[in-house]
């Protein structure tokens, strides 16, 4: 076996280039899982096209003993299965890295790189010789490269067989055929290459108590545990898998054992306006309801968001952000809806937003979203993104407290209603800006009229200046209440630095990695990740406590910086933007470079301006 490079053991990135629609997904999943099962933290990033078949697609597997969760930004092993992208794929390999390609047909012209090792494996030939049928051969080619990698990386074949057995429990014959392909690649590699490579896998025990899950699945699970019963949506990438997961879980765990009836309603709406309206109608009527969408859907929901804000109807909306503007790049990631979500709709409106950073938070924040929406009687928008929502992340096990009960907020039941002299929906009895709700069907005395037109605090229609303003001003009081109950920011001030780093959502992984790197380079930074809009009080404190703050986010227009500038007392000249918006998930190196560029000696540390990435 070739001399191992101890620094790269369990610390390298594999990138697999294929054509979409050729079935490489399960090969990649197989590799991910077997590394995960070997106890080594692993990251999977899927770069797929916005079509169904025939376009280039890439899958990146990062093996990271330190448990980082971000894109590494470098490629150590490239599996180049796609002739169309072969040239650029070769370029991407880091010096000293490896390239695996299908040597069934020679690729002379393109093999010009002296600084990497090129490994040819006749995958097509092997499969043609050993399998029948076009479909089978195409598919097996992919399983076959998994076998090659198993040899190169020293993966445990027994474990791989076990995984296949789980996957194809109902179809044992598939276990054999797949295993055969694995073995073909495995044996060929061992016969022709010095295995394992210097950078390979050595078992660890770092994944116990962890799962591999995507954010949309976790969010859907959160909706199930929050007791959501009405799900309305209109398909849109990358939010679709959230609804698919909810349906899957509900069909497993929400079927009445006696009657076989479904304890949930799943409605594919005709568009996003309808989806939002359905969720609003359902929550107005006492069911926990939600919808999931992406940018274009949020734009279309603007009118309904304004209605729900002003008429004070709770509703939960998941925005799985993708690259905008407009249709943009549906299969790429961005954080471009921060500003719109915060102030969506005409007139004076503002909405509670939650910003999960990973699947784990997607789960817990989904539950929180429903509690906050009903407590505050207003829409809550959960802003995830494609990176969180559709990629597999290593997360701590999700925990559930069986004592949890939904917080329905100020909802009057029959007893309370009967005690009332008269019921007024929009009166601020408790001074927190929140009135009391009632549900249809309970008692005529509790009936009230919900409208998006001017109304008095008693619920009557009005065009009177003073009456109108009483309600509008109370909504600001409610906003102040919101500030007190939303999730606080996550703050790490251990560095005790004059400089801080502020960010949101999926940037977290890259930032934590960048902080380590910076520390190694002697730069210590404090870090705050905001988790909600409005900002909790601690945000104000952190901003005040630092003299220079890097605001890291994944959009062009510094939308988080804008919200901080508007909603806190911070002097915006202290806020330095690091903006990454190419559609690829942000990497630690981008942040490290951005920070160092600013903090180099001699540089005008306090000059405003933004680094664009």
């Amino acid at each position: 076996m070739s001399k191992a490079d101890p620094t790269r053991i369990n610390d390298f990135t594999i990138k697999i280039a294929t054509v979409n629609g050729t079935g490489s997904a399960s090969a990649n999943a197989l590799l991910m899982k077997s590394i995960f099962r070997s106890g080594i933290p692993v990251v999977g990033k899927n770069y797929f096209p916005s079509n169904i078949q025939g376009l280039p697609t890439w899958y990146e597997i990062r093996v990271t003993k330190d448990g980082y969760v971000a894109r590494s930004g470098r490629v150590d092993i490239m599996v180049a299965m796609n002739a169309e992208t072969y040239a650029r794929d070769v370029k991407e390999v880091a010096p000293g890295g490896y390239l695996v390609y299908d040597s069934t047909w020679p690729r002379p012209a393109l093999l010009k790189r002296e600084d990497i090792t090129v490994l040819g494996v006749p995958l097509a030939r092997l499969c043609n010789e050993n399998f029948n049928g076009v479909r089978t051969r195409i598919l097996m080619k992919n399983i076959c490269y998994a076998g090659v990698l198993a040899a190169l990386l020293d993966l445990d074949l027994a474990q791989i067989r076990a995984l296949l057995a789980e996957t194809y429990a109902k179809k044992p014959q598939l276990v054999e055929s797949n295993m055969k392909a694995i073995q073909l690649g495995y044996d060929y590699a061992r016969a022709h290459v010095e295995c394992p490579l210097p950078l390979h896998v050595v078992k660890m025990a770092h994944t116990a108590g962890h799962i591999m899950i995507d954010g949309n699945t976790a969010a859907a699970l959160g909706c199930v545990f929050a007791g959501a019963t009405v799900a309305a949506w209109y398909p849109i990438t990358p939010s679709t898998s959230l609804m698919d997961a909810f349906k899957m879980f509900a069909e497993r765990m929400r079927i009445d054992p006696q009657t076989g009836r479904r304890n949930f309603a799943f409605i594919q709406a005709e568009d996003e306006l309808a989806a939002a309206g359905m969720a609003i109608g359902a929550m107005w009527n006492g069911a926990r309801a939600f919808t999931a969408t992406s940018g274009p859907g949020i734009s279309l929901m603007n009118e309904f968001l304004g209605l729900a804000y002003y008429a004070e109807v709770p509703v939960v909306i998941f925005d799985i952000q993708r690259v905008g503007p407009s249709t943009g790049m549906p299969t790429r990631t961005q954080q471009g809806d921060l500003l719109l979500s915060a102030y969506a709709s005409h007139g004076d409106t503002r909405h509670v937003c939650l910003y999960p950073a990973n699947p784990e938070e997607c789960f817990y924040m989904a539950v929180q979203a429903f509690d906050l929406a009903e407590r505050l009687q207003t829409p809550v928008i959960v802003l995830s993104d494609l990176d969180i929502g559709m990629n597999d992340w290593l997360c701590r096990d999700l925990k559930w407290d069986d004592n949890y009960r939904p917080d329905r907020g100020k909802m009057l039941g029959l007893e309370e209603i009967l005690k009332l002299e008269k019921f007024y929906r929009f009166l601020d009895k408790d001074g927190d800006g929140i009135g009391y709700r009632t549900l249809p069907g309970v008692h005529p005395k509790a009936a009230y009229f919900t409208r998006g037109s001017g109304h008095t605090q008693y619920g009557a229609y009005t065009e009177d200046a003073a009456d109108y303003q009483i309600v509008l001003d109370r909504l600001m009081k409610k906003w102040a209440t919101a500030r007190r109950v939303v999730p606080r920011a996550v703050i790490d001030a251990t560095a005790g630095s004059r400089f801080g780093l502020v960010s949101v959502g999926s940037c977290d992984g890259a930032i934590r990695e960048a902080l380590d790197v910076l520390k190694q380079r002697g730069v210590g930074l404090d870090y705050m990740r905001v988790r909600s809009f409005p900002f909790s009080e601690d945000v104000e404190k952190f901003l005040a406590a630092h003299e220079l703050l890097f605001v890291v986010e994944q959009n062009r227009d510094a939308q988080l910086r804008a919200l901080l500038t508007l909603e806190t007392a911070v002097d915006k000249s202290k806020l330095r933007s690091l903006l990454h918006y190419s559609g690829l998930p942000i990497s630690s190196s981008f942040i490290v470079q951005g920070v160092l560029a600013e903090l180099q000696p001699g540089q005008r540390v306090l000059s405003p301006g933004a680094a664009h990435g």
Partner: protein
Amino acid sequence: MTFIAKPKIAHPSLPKNALGLTRRDYEGALSTLCAGCGHDSITAAIVEASWGVGLEPQNLVKLSGIGCSSKTTAYFVSGGHGFNSVHGRMPAIAMGANAANRSLSYIGVSGDGDTLSIGLGQFCHAIRRNLNMLYIIENNGVYGLTKGQFSASADIGTRAKKGETNFQPPIDPVLLAMTLGASFVARSFSGDKQQLVPLIQAGLKHEGFALIDVLSPCVTFNDHEGSTKSYAYTREHYEPAVHADFIPLEREITADYKEGEALPVVLHDGSRIVLRKLDSAYDPTDRSRAAAQIQERMKGGEYLTGLLYLEPSQNEFHQVNGTPDAPLNSLPYEVLSPGSKGLEKVLARYR
């Protein structure tokens, strides 16, 4: 201003329904519509009908969009919750509300603009889902609240108060609903209480989407050429003074006629519409024949009124979805949550 709701002193003399409630208990706030507006007549019919069927006021959920018509949900059954949503989007609110609690009665009131223009897509899809609700279109051929533009149901040749003529073909909600497979389709006239009240009651009872297209003249903006009482005519002749914002106080138009009969009704502006009541021979269960007859009559300038199509067998939304009889919003959390044990099982699949 027409006064529909009066102070609710339950007169002992007033007739009571099965629940011991009087008509007063089904009234609502004061109408702010124009005197003589057809919509107010429909409101009165809804009051009469819901009293008649003996509906618990709190069990009626009132939904609407935006428009003069949509305002009327505030003018009946004040004991039921009302949701005056946004323009053209009432069906979505209704779908959500109905999904949350299938045990209540849902009545949606909309206008021809609200339903056939901005709301057309949602209207069609509510029909496709066979959403269990009574959907009433208060159809006046104009946008009343925005002062008289043509709606998509305006007939070709109609003249607006401002003078221009409509040249676009009308969208007929009745034929549209039948094409989309609606399970209950009716048409009536705001002034025909005798026909309207039973239709509303039938619609409330129907399991599925019940549409009633109610021709409801707009006192203020309906205006047709060649009418000796039309604004156009008056402007030139008798009117001693004309004022852009003057709206005469009119009385509601009523229509009382028998099965099979045709009744020409003269509107406030002197224009005529001809209503023909279905005769007992009519078979409302044969869709294509029904559609053919309706179109025939239309060619002859007649509106066929009554229950035009009925298909009781169709599954409404909840039957398709397989929801339990108990309202979803009443299911205890314990039933809904898989609990920590359930979570453990789920996680196993992600290791």
